[in-house]
């Protein structure tokens, strides 16, 4: 039983971490609280679903389709909204309000095209085999979700640490001005970040859709709340913090449902969050930074 919960927590936590990674990337590099990240997540789920239903693609190709769609959405997001606001030197709240508008646009157009009802992946498209390992049952699907989440996170961490573009990104997060002086293509990297963050959100959308087998226009809203919680836990803009925060929330949710009951679950979670913010404003895993003028 315990081991079973452990598996559930890891797969849920992995998806939360993936979602939070995109959210925290945009905050860390562009300095924007992207309230459309939940809508992009939903877009990913719909793209994969319709790639499976209409184009009859296999699951992995459908995930690729979701990556392409949400990556393109991320490109447009920066091109049409963030870049013009950067050019105008907008105050820091303006882009956040614009992302609210975008979230409304995305969820209402998806609702207009596909309806408000709950859609499901066709049964024959999903792998149904289960593996049994000493009393623990894990479905092949869960295993794929976990593997995919971990592989993506691994690639991302490695790229940020080792590659030229990763180093440029970290420099940009530290100070855009200094990065520009060092000859880094700041505008290009901003756009790249938006694409990368959005496609991570899109993959998380597909994985949650597979996990819960429910796709609907407002599925991004609860995820956005959770993403915000995760990012606070880990420290805003902190990549490693988002990973740890994602798993922390996954474990907290699974184990509190299993052992405490689900009615006050969210109150406990957000109460904890409130307390953490008051005691450790830089996140559970963040280093204390004191910024004075």
């Amino acid at each position, binding site marked *: 039983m315990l081991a079973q919960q452990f598996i559930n927590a890891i797969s849920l936590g992995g998806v939360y971490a993936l979602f939070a990674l995109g959210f925290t990337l945009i905050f860390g590099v562009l300095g924007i609280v992207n309230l459309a990240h939940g809508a992009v997540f939903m877009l990913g789920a719909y793209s994969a679903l319709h790639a499976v239903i209409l184009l009859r693609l296999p699951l992995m190709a459908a995930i690729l389709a979701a990556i392409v769609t949400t990556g393109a959405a991320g490109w447009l997001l920066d091109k049409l909204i963030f870049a013009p*606001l950067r050019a105008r030197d907008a105050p820091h709240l303006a*882009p956040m309000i614009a992302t609210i508008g975008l979230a409304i646009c995305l969820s209402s157009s998806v609702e207009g095209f596909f309806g408000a009802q709950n859609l499901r992946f066709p049964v024959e498209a999903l792998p149904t085999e289960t593996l049994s390992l000493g009393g623990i049952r894990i479905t092949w699907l869960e295993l794929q979700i976990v593997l995919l989440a971990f592989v993506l996170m691994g690639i991302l961490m490695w790229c940020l640490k080792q590659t030229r573009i990763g180093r440029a990104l970290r420099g940009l997060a530290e100070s855009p001005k200094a990065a520009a002086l060092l000859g880094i293509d700041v505008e290009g990297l901003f756009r790249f970040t938006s694409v990368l963050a959005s496609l991570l959100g899109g993959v998380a959308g597909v994985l949650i859709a597979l996990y819960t087998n429910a796709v609907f226009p407002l599925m991004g809203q609860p995820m956005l709340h959770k993403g915000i919680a995760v990012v606070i836990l880990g420290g805003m803009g902190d990549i490693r913090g988002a990973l740890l925060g994602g798993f922390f929330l996954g474990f907290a949710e699974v184990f509190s449902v299993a052992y405490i009951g689900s009615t006050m679950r969210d109150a406990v979670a957000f109460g904890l969050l409130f307390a953490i913010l008051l005691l450790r404003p830089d996140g559970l895993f963040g280093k204390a930074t004191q910024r004075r003028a």
Partner: protein
Amino acid sequence: MEWLDNFWATYSTLLLSVGTNVLLALSIYLTLACGLLTVANAAFMAIGAYTAALLTLQTGTPFLLALILGALLPALVAMLIGRPTLRLSGVYLAMATLAFGEVVRILILNAEDLTGGALGLNGIAQLTTGFDVAFALIGALYVLLRFAGSRIGRAMAAIRQDEIATELMGLNVRAYKLFAFVLGAALAGLAGALNAHFTFFISPNEYGFERAVEILAMGVLGGTGSPWGAVLGGVVITLLPELLRGFGHYRPLINGVVLIVIIIYSPQGIWDLTRFIRRRHSGKPAVN
């Protein structure tokens, strides 16, 4: 005056919503004017709405007293959580107040015996009249406009520009921040209490994340430079979906697009744009 009666009969709910939404926009204007990004206003609105509605529903308290208590209780809560919370700044403050808002919503959801839980409170007497809302609105606007040119308003503007410099000038920054936070909570509570007494029904989910973000959008869209900006933002955000009714299915889509376009072309808020145009017409240079 028959047309006026007809007009009121058709549009009274909409006009009352515009009024209470403008009150909400003013409530977040107060903290935004100090440079504080707090988004607990939806929670304060909920506390005010539930306080007043429970008072008139279950104890038969006179409406005016219920309104006053509906503004006072959120102010009291704001005073309690303000001291530790307002030490945070920027996004962290926003997140903390957002988390507080969720806690309030979930507590209301779970206190079923008192609040009816997810089913909400039904059959609240429709006591709010246009005069009540107009009176509250004019009062709030008068006070805030008086602030703008006064010591308090200047202190708030100074805090927004540079908190540390303001503190070094000898001003009690924490007290001013707490004042803005508490007064904002009272305004949001009053808006909630008024709103509950014309919508007939309230439930915890009306006061969640979406509402909090909507209130913030009203404040930012209008512009944080003047209370008039908040008024404009509240009116636009409330009326926009109604004006787009002719677009049918595409209404939310166009609503979202309009929001984005306004922000891109007027990132400082609509009020800033109107000021710019006025200056240009009067021949003075548009400086900021």
